[in-house]
């Protein structure tokens, strides 16, 4: 589930508040959004791929929270990793056209 918002890099754009299907975040006046309902997170990673500045990190485990910190995620170089892999980061645009389903042996 959602573990971390890096409030230093977050631009308060509130896109995550908007795109989260289960309404996990609350927008705050004059500040970054907060994780208001972590338990409702369905671990779909949508907030991460929509975050334009890679400030969010979702742990793959939907059942447990691990109390991760910004430092943990930075050290493992995981901020933005999924967004890059689907070609939604500027430097990985070419990957949008890469979908090798048709190359999988049948």
């Amino acid at each position: 589930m959602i573990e971390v918002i890096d409030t230093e890099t977050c631009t308060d754009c509130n896109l995550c508040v908007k795109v989260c299907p289960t309404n996990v975040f609350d927008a705050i006046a004059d500040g970054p959004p907060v994780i208001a309902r972590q338990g409702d997170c369905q671990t779909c990673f949508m907030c991460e791929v929509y975050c334009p500045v890679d400030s969010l990190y979702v742990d793959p485990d939907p059942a447990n929270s691990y109390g991760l910190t910004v430092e943990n995620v930075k050290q493992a170089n995981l901020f933005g990793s999924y967004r890059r892999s689907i070609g939604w980061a500027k430097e990985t645009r070419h990957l949008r056209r890469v979908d090798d389903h048709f190359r999988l042996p049948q």
Partner: protein
Amino acid sequence: MTERDPTPGNREFSLEIETDVLVVGGGPAGCWAALNAISAGARVVLVDKGHCGSSGATASAGTQIWYVPPDPRERETAMASREAMGGYLSERRWMVPVLDKTWESVNRLAAWGYPFPSNEQGIEQRISVQGPEYMRLMGRKVKNAGVRILDHSPALELVRDDTGAIAGATGIRRQEGGNWIVRAAAVIMAAGGCAFMSKALGCDVLTGDGYLMAAEAGAELSGMEFSSAYAISPSFASITKTALYRFARFYREDGTLIEGAGSARGRSIIARTLLSEPVYARLDLAETDALKAIMRRAQPNFFIPFDRRGIDPFTERFPVTLRLDGTVRGTGGLRLTGLDCATTVPGLYAAGDNATREPICGGFTGGGSHNAAWAIATGAFAGTAAAKFALKKKPSPVLRRLGRAGYAEAARELDTNAALQAVQQAVFPLDVNYFRTEAALSREVHRLDDLWERLETSGGVSHLDLLRLREVAAMTATARWMYRAALARTETRGMHRRDDFSKQDPAQRHRLIVSGLGHIAVRPEPVEEPIFREAAE
């Protein structure tokens, strides 16, 4: 909210909208419905519980699509491929138009700029879409076409006019606060299936709300016994993508191979083993680096859990579990009366996972392309038909709100978390829902009936309470329809597996239609004669 007038007055809603067609749900089915309705000349409003473009099963999962060129031989192979697996409950009179409409619609998607990959000859390959990319594009298309979208605005009940036809819906705005009523001459239910908040990828918003709302209006459901779809997932993750497990072998704790276990036919062996011990997987059938790279480029989301835990799934064993997909990769849903995707209730249409997929895949899907094609094609059919119906319909006043469970006056309080757990305990266990028997099914159905009685007399205090209460009510109703139908089908067919009736029974080659909330009725409905005779199995 506990006291309410069944006739919606004017002051009770903070947002009132009038339109021709209301679409409930903004996944692929809802988006294709909205686009087709607006291009047929209707005014269209689309409401989503989450956000149109990122919510629902497709947005986070991505899908392969039943995209088959209009070549008679290829179409024939495509149609014949699943007939036996589905237990001969599908019908070619549905498959043909669904294949046609999917072909046409996916080609439009390409024309709109969806970045399909190309093969070595430079020919675009359109058999699969990446979820975030596809649904972002669909959301934009819907918005730019002039559809009014209300995000974070779940529909909670339908309303009816004095002719008995559906005349719109009401719901809440969970971010802005307040509630809404949309008066519409036709409503399309595209709120997805029901996965019982199992944390299957992207599915927690799919709680069967559309079934409940429609059933309260008198609609029927079909194929609810085909609701025992479970997906393989790493036990520590929500990623229920299963296609790549065909390159996996499955192991016991001590490292010995589980013979016959596999992602398709061998899934029941995994299920059986999980009843008594943990199961591990390793993608060791993917031997070359080239293949490993292809797998990564086909399904980037499949690899998230491994990359984040520092596991190499090709060389290291990892624990797996089966997560219930319910009707999302099952096939049950609202019964359609024809290719216009109308339900039995005038003014009410259904599309995508909200409708039964039996017409194209019988009693078995597991996703695998058919569901995505169904969402596209039925969305398009329902959109066009609902617009036509709405534009012809004479306006008549809204008379009655149809929501019952969760709306009781003099309501009793109900612990929604406990109720949710009770439903999950009835539907998750493999020895109840995957391997079905009369004894276990009837035991659970009685528990669910008791829970339903309590839900019928419950009420939500705040709007958010009401939403959770309605979700739990929808899941409880769905579970009851599933198990009533499963009890009535005393055979094994499609994904419905009765341990006490392990053979397919040629005398039961029919659909099972369920209806009602307090009392549930089950009746058989004949299906078109198959082209191939049913094999005596």
